[in-house]
């Protein structure tokens, strides 16, 4: 039974087993490889996408659960989101594998997140390269807040 969802603003019909991981649908059926797999167990957050605006680990979301939803991935930001430029300018991306998920989780934090909001809101997104502070600086910069 096909499932219909809106991916980055485009209505898409997917014919796949309803228990297929949303991550695989995005990467393989839709060719949206910007969303990464780091652990497949919902711990690392590399596969974070927004499901109706809420960050989820797409490796834990079965396709059936995404029926009728709006899914936003890193490709949906089209390289024009202030966070994307800020991550380049402030060292928020090193090896880059956590970056798409991290940016999507940061999008969900809203416009000017507090320090606490960043630390709690990104606690499900692991980064092994940066020690996180360059990520906070990137988000703050995108929010137009003064530099730390």
């Amino acid at each position, binding site marked *: 039974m096909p499932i219909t969802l809106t991916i980055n603003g485009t209505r898409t019909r997917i014919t796949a087993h309803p228990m297929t991981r949303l991550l695989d649908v995005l990467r393989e059926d839709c060719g*949206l490889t910007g969303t990464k797999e*780091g652990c497949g167990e919902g711990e690392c957050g590399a596969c974070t996408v927004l499901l109706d605006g809420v960050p989820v680990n797409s490796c834990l979301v079965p396709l059936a659960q995404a029926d009728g939803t709006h899914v936003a991935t890193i490709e949906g930001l089209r390289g024009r989101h202030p966070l*994307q*430029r800020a991550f380049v300018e402030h060292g928020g991306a*090193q*090896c880059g594998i956590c970056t798409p998920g991290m*940016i999507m989780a940061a999008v969900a934090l809203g416009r000017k997140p507090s320090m606490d909001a960043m630390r709690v809101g990104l606690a499900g*997104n692991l980064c*092994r390269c940066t020690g996180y*502070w360059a990520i906070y600086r990137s988000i703050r910069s995108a929010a137009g807040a003064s530099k730390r």
Partner: protein
Amino acid sequence: MRAVGRNVLRKDGVSKVTGAARYIDDLTFPNLLYGRTIRSTIPAGEIAGVHLNFDTAGFTIVDYRDIAGRNIVALIEDDQPCLAEREIRHVAEPILLLAHADRERLLAADVQIDYRASTPNYDPAASAITFKTITIDKGDLDRGFAAADRIVEGEYRVGHQEQLYIEPNGVIAVPGPDGPGGDEGGIVIYGSMQCPYYVHRAITVLLDLPDDHVRIIQTETGGGFGGKEEYPSMIAGHAALLARKARRPVKIIYDRVEDMLATTKRHPGIIRHRTGVTRDGRLTAMEIDVLLDGGAYATLSAVVLSRGVIHASGPYRCDHIRVRGRATMTNTPPNGAFRGFGAPQTQFATEVHMDRIADALGLDPVRVRDINALRPGDTTATGQRLGRDCSARQVLREAVARTDFTRRRKALAGSNRGIGLSLFFHGSGFTGGGEVKLASKAALALTERGARILVASTEIGQGTRTMHAQIVADTLGVPYDCIDVNAADTGEVPNSGPTVASRTCMIVGRILQRCAEDMRARLGAMTPRQYLRAHGPLVVTKEYEKPSDITWDDSSYRGDAYGSYGWACDVVEVEVDRDTWQATPVAFTTVHEIGKAIHPMLAKGQIEGGSAQGIGYALIEEVVMRDGRMANGQLTNYTIPTTLDTPAIEVVMLENPYKHGPFGAKGVGEMPIDGPAPAVINALRHAGFDLREIPATPEKIMRARSASPEQRRPSAERESLRSSARSGSELGVGPQRAK
């Protein structure tokens, strides 16, 4: 505008923030098969039988008999098979390879292996097989101990650590005729890796192919930290064997559990110190015994041990030193490269021991370090005379001043918080004669607008492409944006050596600088475009040249172990919850002297990230081995620092140039992970918890709680008297009480 010293935009930034960067699992090929590795489930024994309990139609199946060349993962020693033939030395040893177009069928295939099990050994001290022993001798140890007022002893233990790059290991092997060698059966391998030429050599040996029939192309790599130094040679070999037999491209991507169970980790170690000191805190003799658990095969244990023992006496001056190191075999998956490479293990011991020496003498930990810190003109354990680029005291003093350490230490006494520090150093480049043996080559090709960098040094997040382009841009006298960086593709770039050992800036960057100097001289007054019109293509290739003032004797382990060293000091404040016994780092300051920060933001990123990994090593990252198998091989229960576990990290960078580094730069990649663990343990000691082992999990902290702040001083004193009495009598030197 000059590029060096400025935070230019990183070359790979845009592709990484847009999701356009292509990692290995993002690539696909027509007719692609998926590969799977069947692994041993016992730690020691022999294979007695292999049973394929599935319909093999459509499967490609490979075992050791399909190997055309030598069944080894060619590296240093040739002891590790690519596929086990009979003997099993560890859990998760690869035995059989399967490939199929359908992943579900592949995963469902049931293979049963029968074994004749033998008794495994997990104790590195009881091992019958020693991979490597190294002894460093300086001065006369007996004389040194005879000059001591006190002798302080200690034993320190460090556990495994998983690199935990967020992108697991993965490769795709594509066989000819599209690849090199055409119909003769060459092969192209794409993969996540640090060292394309390591993989290149391993594949030529495994498949018995000439060099030009094998091409290795690094794909965007989602972190390495040493974990993709040697292991990719194994997984690439597996994919290549399947692809050659199937005559189709084969992709192998490990899932997280397989990556944690089967791939290398940081070597666990047991390090013993016996140190002679004068009453006023001067080191007179250091006797150090280093034992590393190599796991089942030699991999890089010999060189990890080498870096470990050279750093074992820390950044300290002492005339009489003996370091004995040994790496042995156990029936656990092989340990290998991880950022720091032996130095985090040995400097953990040294720095915890220094605080115990200070306690035993009733001296301040800063003072004991300041008295003994290496100065320009001093010699290290290998007899290396340090030049003006030695900054041990500067980093110590800067860190102490910045954190108001001494006053803070007094203020926190008796509370749930402790503050501790560590002073450490890290040699840049391959050890000893390693760089001469590597004879790395780098090249620059002139382009219409500037130049293209041709190196096998990989971008794994640390900023190789950006930092190299900055060095070349300024040397050539063109804007940063006019420098391109070629993919790390052995079909196109010379062998600039592995991307390891804090060598990519100081060593490879310097070779590139010499290429750019030569190119600039050839251009003269011409623009690149004019030159190309007048003379045609220009490629300048240079090889590593050993500075004439560096000498090393590998047989005696004497001489200049490294061209230069970085120097650093960490200060950390830790709070202990007296209900849960969990320690939380609440403030972290690190002062790093790195010669010259080519790109200050990237350098700071290395320091912050390495410090966070070091905090994980200190407190939470525990590999639980049960019957030779990692029992917590998933991210749910092997945890790395999250946002909530990582304290604010204040980074101070000092610059004291190394004359042979590009623009004065030394290495920076590894050093940050050497210091956090001992600083954390010393902070816990200050809070009343006498630990000698990491990770300092709540269980270990709870067991150490008897040493409360009020009791700490007397108990430390008693113990030190015991040890000095024992050692003193051995030496015929009477114990003396500290005042």
